[in-house]
């Protein structure tokens, strides 16, 4: 470093005068100096205190072997889940009910981030490191095969375990290689929302959707036609798959993804068309669920594709579209009701759980996926039940009729490809979908490229 050319200036330093005059600067210098010293001392002692606390609190065995029994002799079961959003009491009493029925067991809830990605990352780090906790945990529907393959889920039974009790699409998502690995907790399905004041009848085909949207747009300048999620993320995969299924695509042999089938190309062509022709606004290519919901809620669009969560806010007090919204199945080429993508979460067991906790964990799993629990989740937290019987329960039909009315739509939902390679593929697939949707490449080229990448990642077809 270069030294200054002359010895450092000592005495007067006009810059130190400070703003606003001598009185202010004196005040500031006194106050701030004293304050600063105090603050520094406080921070230093806080830091030392924390270090001391942590040093004392450090457990002798490391995190990999947590104590099985608490000081009071209770068996502790750790449940990792995302916050449910809503009143705290109903879920808490659900857990207390469990603890009453199983004396000697205490449930500890660990909250995870709601963003699917972040939770996945947390699990990857934890389970990859061989963690024995949590004992019961939530997983996204698309993670099942991967977790099962990695040995992070305990097998619960054969593939007939859940049939009849749970919705067929939910069961599809919970089964892999003829075994059941987790129990569906609550589900989600892609829906078509529409403005009933502009389009009284639900469109059955893509053409009908476009025509009715354009007719409404002609009457009102500034109105958008169709809002959906085109940002490069998992939501785009859902939208794209729905468009592909709507054009007759199936997805390929079980476990494999066929991206460049004619139906897939048709589906992506439709999506690209909505943006290119102005039916959907330019913001669609960076829109996620909230952007679409807010746009629709402001009265700015005729149609929207979104999850059921949006309904509550669209019908809330003060919403400009309150009372003017209808929900239906997504359109298809043929006019038959379309299949929404299945979303939602499952509950699974950690096979590396401590021996003493296994029984209690299984019991907790059964309790949380019982009909009672499903009703509680539906009524208080607006979670779509995965169990068939919850839909006809009078409490559900009474308190949340909208959710109850979704049963036919959610029964027709389709699971995304169940393959352990899903996470590996998701990335390549999102890239090629985004290429097609933004017009970087023609749908055929984009999907060919995606198929090539998918094949490379999964290895040659068997």
């Amino acid at each position: 470093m270069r030294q200054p050319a002359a010895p450092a200036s000592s005495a007067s330093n006009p810059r130190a005068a400070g703003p606003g005059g001598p009185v202010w600067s004196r005040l500031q210098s006194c106050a701030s100096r004293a304050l600063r010293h105090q603050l520094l001392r406080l921070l230093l002692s806080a830091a030392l205190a924390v270090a001391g606390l942590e040093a004392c609190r450090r457990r002798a065995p490391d995190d990999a072997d947590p104590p099985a029994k608490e000081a009071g002799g209770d068996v502790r079961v750790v449940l990792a889940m995302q916050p449910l959003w809503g009143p705290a009491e109903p879920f808490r009493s659900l857990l207390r009910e469990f603890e009453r029925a199983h004396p000697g067991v205490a449930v500890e809830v660990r909250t995870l981030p709601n963003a699917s990605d972040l939770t996945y990352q947390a699990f990857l780090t934890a389970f990859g490191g061989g963690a024995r906790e949590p004992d019961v945990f939530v997983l996204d529907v698309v993670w099942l095969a991967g977790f099962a393959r990695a040995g992070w889920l305990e097998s619960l039974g054969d593939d007939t375990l859940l049939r009849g009790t749970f919705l067929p699409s939910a069961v599809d998502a919970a089964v892999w290689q003829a075994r059941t690995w987790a129990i569906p907790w609550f589900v989600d399905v892609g829906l078509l929302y529409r403005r009933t004041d502009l389009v009284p009848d639900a469109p059955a085909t893509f053409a009908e959707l476009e025509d009715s949207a354009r007719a409404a747009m002609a009457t009102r300048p500034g109105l958008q036609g169709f809002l959906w999620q085109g940002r490069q993320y998992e939501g785009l995969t859902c939208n794209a798959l729905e468009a592909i299924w709507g054009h007759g695509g199936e997805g390929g042999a079980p476990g494999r993804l066929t991206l460049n089938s004619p139906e897939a190309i048709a589906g992506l062509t439709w999506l690209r068309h909505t943006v290119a022709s102005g039916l959907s606004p330019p913001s669609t290519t960076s829109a996620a669920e909230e952007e679409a919901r807010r746009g629709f809620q402001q009265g700015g669009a005729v149609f929207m594709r979104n999850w059921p969560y949006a309904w509550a806010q669209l019908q809330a007090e003060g919403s400009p579209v309150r009372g003017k919204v209808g929900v239906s199945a997504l359109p298809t080429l043929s006019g038959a009701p379309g299949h929404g993508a299945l979303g939602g979460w499952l509950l699974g067991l950690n096979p590396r759980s401590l021996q003493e906790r296994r029984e209690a964990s299984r019991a907790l799993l059964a309790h949380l996926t019982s009909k009672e629990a499903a009703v509680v989740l539906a009524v208080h937290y607006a979670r779509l039940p995965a169990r068939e019987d919850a839909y006809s329960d009078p409490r559900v039909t009474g308190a949340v009729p909208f959710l109850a009315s979704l049963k036919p739509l959610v029964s027709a939902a389709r699971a995304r490809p169940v393959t352990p390679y899903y996470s590996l593929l998701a990335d390549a697939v999102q890239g090629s979908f985004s290429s097609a949707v933004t017009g970087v490449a023609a749908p055929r080229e984009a999907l060919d490229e995606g198929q090539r990448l998918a094949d490379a990642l999964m290895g040659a077809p068997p």
Partner: protein
Amino acid sequence: MSLARRLRTERAQAILFVAPAVMVLVAVALVPILAALWLSFHRSILLFGERAFVGLDNYALLLRDTRFHAALLRTLYFAAVAVTIELLLALPIALLLHRAMPGRGFLRAAVLIPWAIPTVVSARIWGWLFNPDYGLLPRLLPASDVNWLGTPGYALHAAIVVDVWKTTPFVALLLLAGLQGIPEDLYRAARVDGAGRWTLLTRITLPLLMPAILLALLFRTLDALRVFDAIWVLTEGGPANTTETLSVYAYKTLLRAGNFGYGSAQSVVTFLVVMAVGVIYLRVLGAGREG
């Protein structure tokens, strides 16, 4: 005390001075970095429990990976443009803040706000600002039917704007600290000699500020080459992977695909690239010291 003995004591003391820092670095940083390096020589996909030693296979794959090449070029472009703009903006800001004026303390604090906000939050703010439907920017910019964050080509520049907004304060702070080190006497003497403002700037300020400028450049470039948070929140690497920098690609490979072997190899190569840039800077720094 003889010269040799004094030197030896000083040397021993020097080692004591430096020991804590070295211990912390070795214990907490060196081990994971070496572990990552070790991982890069394996084919390790977490979900499949695969762990096979494959030597340099991952690196050979990287050489053929067009997506990686694209990410590399993109990252270099991003860093070059962002750091240049930041420096050009930060210098006038630092000069401005250096002057005595009313409200200077407040101004200094205010200038640091963009940098004080967590990146995940500021990226979200800019995401809303860029939104073509209700964001502020499209209303201000003319002829903007373009969705900045959803159009390939534009999205990367939107990310650059966010990065510039966020880190210009950091560079300004470093330059300001450097300005403090320039003695007032020099300016006084030069003004007595009749030097104008421009001469003061180019003959005194800039040369003496060089060390600070180069230091700021060094750390900013290193950071810009590893940018992640801002881009992730803004676009997650989209649209169509056009904002995918090296870190974003590595993140997706490591923590989405669970492909630890390949992801670690990517990180090692990123590290080598960053180190190469660092070495170039240090050469220039060293040359600056000579001149």
